[in-house]
């Protein structure tokens, strides 16, 4: 096997961030180059030296597995950081805090800030649940925005006034495609980084969507039927608690 084939096979099996992958491959290449040089200085031909040096590295898939275990095994701190957002959501539902806009804004801002900081520091695995919640906010807001657009459109057609006024209505219309573009860009970057973790980060989305659907169905979102809207909070809190336990395991 040639050196480039070995590095290619190793690269295929290294399921981690591209920056880490590049660094691992560069380091291993310098190691094999040093070994080839040493063998050649001992009188071995260039072809034989390369073949032997590559053979000594061993099975690329096994080596990739060893690298993966070294990099991706989480510490207790990582486990804690990964479970905090799920626990926070469980608390928000358990204590009915979502009905207070201030708490919602604080939670979304915290998730976005922590996900951003973690991303800049190399995107450790614990950052992905935070990223999931940070992206859940715009995704869920689209459904509300679409309800508002449809309602406004209906009012226009039936000759009534646009609710919330024309500038705000136009802002909502523009908000959907612009925020979608931003979310798609972030998701594409994250998928390139670690697609498996992105799929795990997206886990809360179906629960959120179901919760919103139930809320709307029970007339909790737009109608002032607060008592009925709170009926699902205990169940939803349990779901996020379960997500925290699953993540920790």
């Amino acid at each position, binding site marked *: 096997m040639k050196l480039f084939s070995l590095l290619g096979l190793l690269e295929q099996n290294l399921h981690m961030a591209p920056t880490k992958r590049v660094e691992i491959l560069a380091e291993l290449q*310098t190691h094999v180059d040093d070994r080839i040089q040493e063998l050649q200085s001992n009188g071995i031909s260039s072809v034989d030296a390369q073949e032997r040096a590559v053979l*000594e590295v061993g099975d690329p898939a096994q080596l990739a597995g060893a690298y993966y275990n*070294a990099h991706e095994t989480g510490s207790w701190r990582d486990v804690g950081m990964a479970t905090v957002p799920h626990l926070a959501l469980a608390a928000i539902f358990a204590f009915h805090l979502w009905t207070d806009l201030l708490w919602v804004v604080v939670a979304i801002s915290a998730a976005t800030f922590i996900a951003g900081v973690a991303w800049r520091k190399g995107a450790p695995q614990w950052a992905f649940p935070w990223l999931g919640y940070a992206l859940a906010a715009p995704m869920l807001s689209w459904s509300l925005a679409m309800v508002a657009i449809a309602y406004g459109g209906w009012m226009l057609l039936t000759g009534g006034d646009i609710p919330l006024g024309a500038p705000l209505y136009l802002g909502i219309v523009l908000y959907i495609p612009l925020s979608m573009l931003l979310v798609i860009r972030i998701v594409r970057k994250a998928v390139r980084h670690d697609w498996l973790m992105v799929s795990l980060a997206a886990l809360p989305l179906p629960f959120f969507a179901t919760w919103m659907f139930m809320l709307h169905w029970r007339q909790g979102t737009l109608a002032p039927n607060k008592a009925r809207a709170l009926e699902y909070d205990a169940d939803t809190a349990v779901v996020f608690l379960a997500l925290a336990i699953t993540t920790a395991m």
Partner: protein
Amino acid sequence: MYQKELLKGNTETLLLALLVQEPMYGYQIVKEIEQRSSGYFLFREGTLYPALHRLEKAGLINGAWAPSPSRQQRRYYSVSERGLRELRRKRAEWRDFTQAVNLVMQPSR
């Protein structure tokens, strides 16, 4: 097999003990360990680099690219403050262990 298990359990201690003396890169570590142990320890890439990366992730060593004496870029590893503390702890642990093993193994009078 026994020798392999012994090395597996002590790879990280050996690396810390070596790197505490001076920063080194992977290939240099392999050669240094081989030389110091008179050929007893032969580190392979599959053992060495994952162990170095594990130590780095744990904050016990720091890795950085720097030019080697031959002016080629190499990833040098050096022991961090936390690594120093860990090495002290591991050395004490090893001393106690070998003492106990020697006491058991020496022929009874």
